[in-house]
């Protein structure tokens, strides 16, 4: 039983920013049954539970290309722009990102502030 327990633990992906955790079935750039599709980063992947088709994959997250933190693909936690960046690194190096992204983030920040207050 001990063995299966550690197995189960090993196979869980947890976002270090938001805490979202979920079991995964594959890590890498070429999930099974994806044919012509290739991922541009090493990802934690699971079967898409929301697709009726069992062969569809779902990317849960990957590691930040700057700080190597494990982050989910949720827009509050990370951003992909040729590489994966965690939100902490994005705000640290915001000036290097294109204007479109900067504007988008500013807008989001504002709306989330509005929602809180």
């Amino acid at each position: 039983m001990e063995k299966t327990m550690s197995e189960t633990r090993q196979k869980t992906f947890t976002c270090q920013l938001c805490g979202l955790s979920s079991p995964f079935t594959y890590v890498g750039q070429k999930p099974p049954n994806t044919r012509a599709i290739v991922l541009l980063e090493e990802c934690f992947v699971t079967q898409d539970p929301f697709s009726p088709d069992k062969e569809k994959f779902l990317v849960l997250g990957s590691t930040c290309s700057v700080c190597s933190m494990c982050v989910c693909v949720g827009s509050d936690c990370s951003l992909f722009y040729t590489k994966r960046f965690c939100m902490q690194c994005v705000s640290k190096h915001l000036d290097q990102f294109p204007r479109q992204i900067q504007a988008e983030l500013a807008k989001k920040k504002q709306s989330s502030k509005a929602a809180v207050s």
Partner: protein
Amino acid sequence: MDSERGRDSRSWDWDSPQCRAQLDEIFFRRHDYIQAGSQEHREFWAFLDRFQRFKTKRDMSAAGAKEDRKDGRKTGAGALDLGLPEEYDARYRINVSVCTGDVEERLGKSEHKGRRQRASGPGSQEISDCRLALLHFLDFSQRQSFGKLAKLRREQKNLPIFQYRDRIVELVRKHPVVVVAGDTGCGKSTQVPQYLLSAGFNHIGCTQPRRIACISLAKRVSFESLNLYGSKVGYQIRFETTRTPATKLLFLTEGLLLRQIQQDRTLAQYQVLIVDEVHERHLHCDFLLGVLRSLLAEQPDLRLILMSATINIKLFSDYFNGAPVLQVPGRLFPIQVIYQPIPAEEQPSRSEKLDPRPYLRILQGIDQRYPPEERGDLLIFLSGVAEISTIQEACQIYGTHTRRWIVFDISPPGVRKCIISTNIAETSVTIDGVRFVVDSGKVKEMSFDPKAKMQRLQEFWISRASSEQRKGRAGRTGPGVCYRLYAESDYDAFAPYPVPEIHRVALDSLILQMKSMCLGDPLSFVFIDPPPAASIQTAVTYLKQQGALDGRGELTSIGSLLAQLPVDVVIGKMLVLGSLFKLVDPVLTVAAALSVQSPFLRSAQHNPDCATARQPLNSNHGDPFTLLNTFNAWVEVKGERGGGSRKWCRRRGLEEQRLYEMVNLRRQFKELLRSHGLLESEHSAPPGSDRGQRREKLAERKKLHQLKRDHEQQESSRRKVLRMDEGQDGEFSSGSDTEGGGRGKKDQEGLGQNVDIQEVKFKLRHNVSELQEAASVSQDMSSRQQALLKLLLCRGLYPQLALPDEHNTTRKDSDQVFHTKNKQGVVIHPTSVFASDPEVLQVPEDDTREMGPDKRDSSRHQLLAFVTLLETNKPYLSNCVRVPALQALLLVANSVDSNADCTRLVVDGWLELELREAEDALKVLSTALNLRAEWERLLLAQLGGSTMGGAAVQGVSRKVMEKLSEGLVRFLLYTEVSYSLRRLTAFQTQNLYIGPLSQSEGSHTSAPDVDPLFPGVEAKPDPIKGGLRVTSFFNYNCLADSKDLYSECLRTFWTCPNCDLYMPLTPLERMQHEASCRPAGEQQQPEEEPGGKASSSSVSSLTRVYHCDVCDEDLSLTSTEILKHKRQHMYSVK
């Protein structure tokens, strides 16, 4: 680039199906991630339209903004350079790429090879446009799915139980038993199993009181754990299972777990057992807790978790040695309680319908007080189905009139939903959006009267605990209001908790199961809340009457078989009996039909069209025969018209769902009989064994499976519609009246547009032609088979017999009265065939002879065998079958007492039969005794064979069996003996028996002189009634009017029709002779049996070892020979 040229050169139309098909050839081939024709493929093209529109719009608006591209981007000195591209492109935000050799090649080709290629296919621009759209589509789908996942995780986190996640796991690790208490909506049922799974526990079983909950929880948990466990989360219920060897978490019913424990007391297959909804206090659940409690000591590694609403938690904790309790505080908004007792003039009287006015006033009040924009639905708690339909009707009228309410359906904005339910919605059904609750304060519950052996469906006040649960339903999603249709003083007077089922129902099945699990004396078993001793005693007595327990209370062989059948004892007995004769098919159908709710819709009862359409299905032999006809006719329709059966049912006012349940149950019964060796296993090859037909069959099955899958997919995407009464379908003993309205309509609406999924499942599960064959067999039943089937039903149902009142002929049809042994003045339920056709139960006038007051001689007296005696506003008999009285009683009764010349018989101490002719009486009795002895012998052989040899060994040879059924039929149909039949008065039963003989008398008349009627059974003087106990059920000469047994005047000369015996014999001696003397031809028979297997028992049944004291010798003689031998000494001594 060359895009302009491409566009100019030919007309590429993105909307044209041909053009799209050409791109499909490149991107969506058979082995690609997305395949042409799939759901995603369709979604892609829809996405492409939107994507292109969006792009055009953006290109136009962004045309001028290109210059200041680099403005915002400065790399501070010393900072890390992320190496991002100079120019912004949305494409860089996608972490997926599509690259196949083909696509690249195509792009290359079209660039280099020029026009010819392009003229017939998509140009490179189109290909790269399509590829870009595909990338965005993939990204979009990823975001969508991830969004759902994030939402799911957020919801899980927000459940009240989430904070206790680690604490629960820790408690379970440390303690053998843990109680988790929390109200509906706290998430215990879905989350606790997942916490355990992710903590590394394997082999988790979680019981549910309702089957439907097993299925929906398995689906939900499997979904929430992202199907990662796939087949590792499953369910197992009576007809279906998704369990595989890989299953780690199994949802199953309480009854099923009990059966598993019956097979394996160590529970080795489970590491953790969760018993959910223990507060509901169902019979099975209480019993399961008791069994688990006694097993836990032997299984130190097993973990047990009880999950409950926050009701009486201490009781459970105390029962398990103070097990730790983890209480999850509910998430409840404040609820305003308004007491609105029903005024006296609106109180329903006993027989009247519920007055809807108090309910309508509340609807009106809500409309006046709360603006329609404020959402909030209404949940009304009523006591039963009849009440629901009354109120539903009134609310519907009000709703259509005001356009503010919709009853049961999903409501459009601005319209409130009104949900009407029984107590089932207190704790078990999650209904979102309820803001108002109306509590009638009433519940209908089954109670059991052990004295009359009768069930009662009565309305009671609910308990304070139920009342609080009902109220709580108003405050799940926001502040709410609870209207109580009773006074606060009523509330204070309510019992604190509901009465557990174990205190309310018959315990027959429970006791039987306890016996088979070797749990010792049921009276000393430690129940969480022990049932009354009288109730246990009644059950034991009943099981003895039924032959399931012997005199010492131990299981008989038939009893241990019955304990393994998950059905009522009565039904189980029928199945076993049916397997002996060649009546398996009709008996299977009847047993299944009697185990589910009636398919005859009550609403159709007064519809003349339905009545006419039903007419050909009715049988005046009894309701089981009507059910049999109905089922067979339905199978016939299914075979011929398939999907047309739904319409067929509607025309006849039949609920088809019940028929599906029957066919499933029937199949399960068949498998049970087969697995117990009571039915030959099917050896025949599947029909249509030539290759073409088989292929066709296979293709059809494939198609059906596809239909089923499609349906399931649709189901999961369709919004779920409320179905309050799910789970009650045919559940046996869980007596909570989980009724509700509004079902059926939903099924039809939902399925109307596409496939009848029930039909698909039916075809997948059952072999229609085989069913049809079985149906036609029982349709063509001869009157002889019918008589035999009646006898089997009667034997199964015994002692549930009712006698028509002697004055019924002078009464109106609706006033016909019947009597059972314990209850006088019962009536036939209006749904029974006998309610509309009572004449068939009456003794024909021309056949009777008045023999003084209350005595009518006839050979045509009949009794009713019935399935249930249920008291609602009157005591009703339902599911009745009529049987010839004298014959049936002699063949099935447990106690038959006679006078000296057997002209007066008393059966079971309450029915008296007087036969006119002594000669006839003796003949009838003697025949019955022989038939019964043979029947018993064959039954035992059959049961013995089944327990030892398995299916291969058929305990009884066909010839012997056919001879017996021939004899029984002849006896049932052609016994023309005139007799009177009446119920004994209380006074008469007091002085019924002569009582035991005094010591001195006893010494000279006792046993040694009298030979046993049947070899191996000693006839002994009965210590209570007096007379001689000839067989276990027949007591000779014990009735008080008896003449002396040995007075010579009772000896009359008699010639045996089988042998040459001619001598003066007493009635008893004559019966003894007949019991063993067979026609000359028959005596030879055993030796002719192939293999000589059966012969030994048959021969020994005729002769036995007799020790003659006079000769002082052991002689092997038949009973007749013994008689002759003894007579020889008698004369010589004198």
